[in-house]
């Protein structure tokens, strides 16, 4: 269908549109007009992706004088593929209506592991080895060597791509990763390098968060983008954590040992070069004198490039004299590693600010702050010079240099925490030195500054006013949309008591209370008897899950549950969990019924959908607070309080509730679906907790469902499931329309639509 939003003609590939999609587009359009950032929350299953894509591409089409580029960031490869598939449909529709003028180029970009077509490289098991395998075949010095000596292996796909030169371009169209691989195979060009090249030319790019947020990767991939970009972060409820992780470094004993080994090898290399080819080292020295900004003459295709999170001075300044010489630099690094080793020997937990840390490094190891700041770049320059291709072997020393650079650069927003042992296992010596970033705005700041419009969107962004504070930006639009439903297909409940009327909670003082454990067990047992097919349970942590499942096993509750449904458990092992999930699905398919025990914040809670019969009910046992005694969390809370005036309690509740909402949101993936959600903890009935749930859940949470006991919940579940099993009318009945056709949209002005929705 095709309709007007103000001055833009929107092409939408389906015959009908949900009213919330329409108003989502209206808001998005306003943000684009205002050239500002925006924050939009819309429940899952309402077609966020297609609304976004179709509005932005239509916007571009209607304003040919100002070409906008769309950068769409997803969390997983699977989501990337889904987005591209939607885009393909949309593109076909637009081309059908507008002719070839509407053609765009859209590519997905992923790691070499997902794009490589060379069977020799692809056989490596993990991402880092694939990267290293690729470099071994495509690095410039390897290729130079191969020219002289044909027995040196190279990658034929890369060679062909290079030979094609500037002729190697993708014709317009939408390319999923699959399409890219197929195209690469057919032409004999390397899809990875082709995609990376096409990023500069494409109208739409779909890739992962890291390519924009992680300074190391962003420098390589995203540095040449123009300002006229719309950057979309989809499923962005955890974006602050992604930002923080991108700038946090964790150093263990193994890291330091590995780094020592790496240094040793580099020293050997340097000696070898000194003996054979000293001119190369001298050339490098010259280059460093001239300053890092002039590294343009470093071989262009071997992109080790700048770090956008670093201040500009690092690019303009010359590398300090004491690390220009390769062997001097190695000596500095060795001293630094030695120093870190000494710090790890500590008996107590230590917490330091970067400034204090740098001061003590200067005192004890004689390395000043400026030197530390340049470590990262200096190392890469050195690795280039030494022609090291197996980069996966050198991860340890890279980690150390990351650490040094970050510590040297930032005086605020970080802290260094040294823990001699894990608090949950105080007997095992496992010292960890962590540089933890507290300020999510640091990593994302360059993105906000560089691009015209940044859209942050997800199914759960409540409370929506907290994100601008966490990420330190000013959105021009921030809106939360509810779902228009033909029937009440979600049924959230807050369960506060067991059948014996005793309160249930995972509060620290109550969680191991036998009564609470038993009441939780009875709840699951009763639910297993009335809910068909799949049930998903989320626990607050692995240790709590172990504990409670053990005690259910001892009291025989688990056995009773197994009479009705099979039980599967998520573990920290990915393979085991995948297998469990697979069998869980099969049990749901064949009618045996199954329960899946999972952990909030685990892999399953973040990425796996339990839609349709795979999840008719989700039970959230307890409130998934973070481990509040963790030193890192405490440091972050303190920072948030001092810098952004966010109270500790507020942040913890916000974080716990968004996790809970994320968990329960797994059961609803479309409007035709239905599911129940039970929040089993008395704390959920309190207003300060409950009000932080997203609006689309709250609007279905009736007052009568706020303080239930197990028996009442079972009764409600029964009634709900019967009601939902009845056939229903998709288009919506009565006055409330939930599907709009083209006429509907034409009929109503913006005003009347808004009246109808809110």
């Amino acid at each position: 269908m095709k309709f007007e939003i103000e001055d833009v003609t929107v092409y939408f590939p389906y015959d009908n549109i949900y009213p919330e999609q329409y108003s989502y587009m209206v808001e998005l359009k306003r943000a684009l007009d205002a050239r500002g950032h925006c924050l939009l929350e819309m429940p899952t299953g309402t077609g966020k992706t297609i609304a976004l894509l179709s509005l932005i591409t239509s916007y571009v089409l209607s304003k040919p004088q100002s070409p906008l580029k769309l950068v769409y960031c997803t969390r997983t490869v699977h989501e990337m593929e889904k987005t591209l598939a939607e885009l393909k449909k949309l593109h076909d529709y637009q081309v059908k209506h507008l002719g070839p003028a509407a053609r765009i180029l859209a590519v997905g970009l992923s790691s070499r592991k997902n794009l490589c077509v060379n069977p020799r490289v692809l056989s490596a098991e993990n991402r880092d080895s694939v990267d290293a395998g690729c470099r071994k075949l495509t690095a410039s010095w390897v290729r130079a060597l191969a020219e002289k000596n044909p027995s040196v292996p190279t990658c034929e796909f890369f060679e062909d791509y290079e030979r094609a030169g500037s002729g190697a371009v993708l014709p317009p169209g939408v390319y999923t990763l699959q399409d890219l691989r197929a195209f690469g195979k057919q032409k004999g060009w390397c899809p990875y390098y082709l995609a990376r090249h096409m990023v500069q030319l494409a109208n739409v790019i779909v890739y992962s968060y890291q390519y924009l947020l992680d300074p190391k990767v962003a420098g390589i991939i995203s540095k040449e983008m123009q300002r006229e970009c719309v950057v979309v972060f989809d499923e962005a409820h955890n974006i602050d954590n992604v930002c923080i992780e991108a700038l946090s470094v964790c150093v263990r004993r193994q890291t330091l040992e590995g780094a020592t080994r790496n240094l040793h090898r580099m020293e050997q290399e340097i000696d070898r070069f000194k003996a054979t080819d000293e001119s190369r080292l001298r050339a490098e020295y010259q280059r460093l004198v001239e300053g890092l900004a002039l590294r343009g003459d470093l071989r262009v295709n071997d992109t080790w490039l700048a770090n956008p999170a670093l201040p500009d001075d690092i690019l303009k300044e010359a590398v300090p004299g004491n690390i220009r010489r390769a062997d001097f630099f190695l000596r500095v690094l060795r001293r630094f590693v030695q120093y870190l080793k000494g710090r790890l020997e500590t008996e107590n937990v230590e917490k330091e600010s970067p400034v204090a840390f740098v001061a003590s490094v200067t005192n004890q190891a004689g390395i000043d702050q400026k030197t530390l700041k340049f470590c990262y770049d200096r190392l890469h320059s050195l690795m280039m010079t030494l022609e090291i291709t197996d980069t996966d072997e050198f991860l340890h020393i890279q980690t150390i240099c990351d650490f040094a650079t970050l510590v040297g650069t930032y005086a605020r927003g970080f802290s260094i925490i040294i823990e001699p042992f894990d608090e949950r296992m105080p007997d095992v010596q496992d010292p960890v030195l962590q540089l933890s970033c507290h300020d999510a705005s640091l990593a994302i700041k360059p993105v906000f500054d560089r691009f015209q419009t940044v859209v942050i969107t997800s199914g759960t962004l409540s409370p929506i006013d907290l994100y601008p504070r966490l990420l330190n930006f000013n959105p021009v639009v921030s809106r939360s949309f509810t779902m228009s439903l033909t029937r009440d297909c979600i049924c959230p409940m807050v369960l506060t008591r067991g059948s014996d009327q005793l309160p249930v909670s995972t509060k620290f003082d109550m969680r191991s209370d036998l009564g609470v454990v038993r009441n939780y067990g009875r709840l699951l047992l009763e639910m297993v008897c009335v809910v068909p097919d799949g049930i998903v349970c989320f626990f607050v942590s692995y240790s709590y899950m172990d504990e409670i499942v053990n005690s259910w096993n001892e009291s025989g509750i688990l056995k009773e549950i197994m009479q009705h449904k099979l039980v599967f458990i998520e573990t920290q092992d990915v393979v085991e969990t995948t297998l469990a999930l697979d069998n869980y699905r099969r049990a749901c398919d064949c009618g045996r019924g199954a329960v899946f025990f999972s952990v909030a914040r685990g892999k399953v809670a973040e990425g796996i959908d339990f839609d349709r019969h795979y999840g008719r009910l989700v039970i959230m046992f307890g409130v998934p607070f973070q481990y509040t005694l963790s030193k890192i969390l405490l440091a972050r809370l303190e920072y948030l309080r001092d810098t952004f005036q966010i109270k500790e309690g507020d942040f913890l509740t916000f974080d716990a509730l968004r996790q809970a909402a994320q968990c329960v949101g797994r059961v609803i993936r479309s409007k035709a679906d239905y599911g129940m959600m039970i929040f089993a903890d008395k704390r959920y009935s309190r207003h300060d907790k409950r009000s932080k749930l997203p609006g689309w859940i709250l609007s279905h949470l009736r007052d009568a469902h706020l303080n239930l006991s197990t028996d009442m919940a079972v009764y409600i579940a029964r009634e709900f499931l019967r009601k939902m099993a009845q056939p229903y009318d998709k288009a919506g009945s009565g006055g409330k329309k939930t599907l709009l056709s083209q006429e509907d949209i034409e009929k109503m002005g913006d005003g009347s639509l808004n009246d109808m929705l809110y």
Partner: protein
Amino acid sequence: MNNGEGRRLAGQAEEEDDEDDVDECGLEAWERAYADERSWESLQEDESGMLRSIDNKALYHAQYRRRLRSLASSNAASRIQKGLIRYLCIVIDLSRAASETDFRPSRMAVVAKNVEAFIREFFDQNPLSQIGLVTIKDGVANCLTDLGGSPESHIKALMGKLECSGDSSLQNALDLVCGYLEQIPSYGHREVLILNSALSTCDPGDIMETIQKCKKSKVRCSVIGLSAEIFICKHICQETGGLYSVAVDESHFKELILEHAPPPPAIAEFAIANLIKMGFPQRAAENVISICLCHKEARGGGYTCPRCKARVCELPTECRICGLTLVSSPHLARSYHHLFPIAPFDEVTPVRLSSSQHKLPKSCFGCQQSLLNPGNRPSLSVECPRCKQFFCIDCDIYIHESLHNCPGCESFRHFKTVSSSEE
């Protein structure tokens, strides 16, 4: 959005920690039933602002009309072939879940009661068809009665066997039923109706294979669930072309099960015309005593097979000696109406009825009652599209559900034939 929030906010602020025992929404079960139904919301106001009581009759009628329309629309392509000779296996789930008491007194009792009503209704509407009963208990499917045409024997067998235990196994049930239904002649329509209480099925093998087997041998499986929608049941019904429904309460369950009484449209592959040999035996006089073949007893009455002269007690059946299908002509006649249903009547808008520009009858053609409510306001009424006669709602339902003939059309036809013969 959440209108209770404001109210709670005030109370919640101080009771940070000790809110455990506050039982704010502790509605009793009986209260909840009212709160859920919200019957007050369906009260309507009339033009003068007076409350109008809820018109149940109109509601029922609306429901009925909807059903009729859906039926008519499925028959839209004028003459849909219908399987009049049906072989139906009713599978009754007597697993542990059947003892639950959310239906009073128990699911099992409710199912048994309604199956009884269904069996009677079924034979009334499909005199040429046969039923068999199968139960699932302890994960095993048992055959309660073989396929047969006598309602009494089925009901007797069913009532004697009401106890439940163990798991349910749809696969075992389907395997067993499939084995029975595969043997019946090709002109018969094979159907299974599963009355499922359980929420899970414990199967010995891959149920998907069994479903494919059913599909291949053209067994139409329908399921009525008593508790909630189960994926595998839905899948079975979709694959084999059956109906899947879930009962909300007892009356709904009755409605659902009775929906299976009229014959379904024939599966396309069966839609080849086929001649079947049938016998129409005569009823013997009461005082002639002879030994019947079905009970091996000497008794009076009964019917004699026209081909081999054997004696049977009840019709319809198959002759035990020569295998001839024995029916009586009223049976055939009763099955006939399924093929030529009367068209649904058009609803008459009250405006048309009250506007007096054309003279409209003021009383129902069927029962001669006035079509006007007290106070001279027109009530709901319908019009036959063929003979243009008006009927009241009660007659409408009676005509479509029981009579299967329109009195208006019939009398006019009669009138015409009489008048033409007079000329």
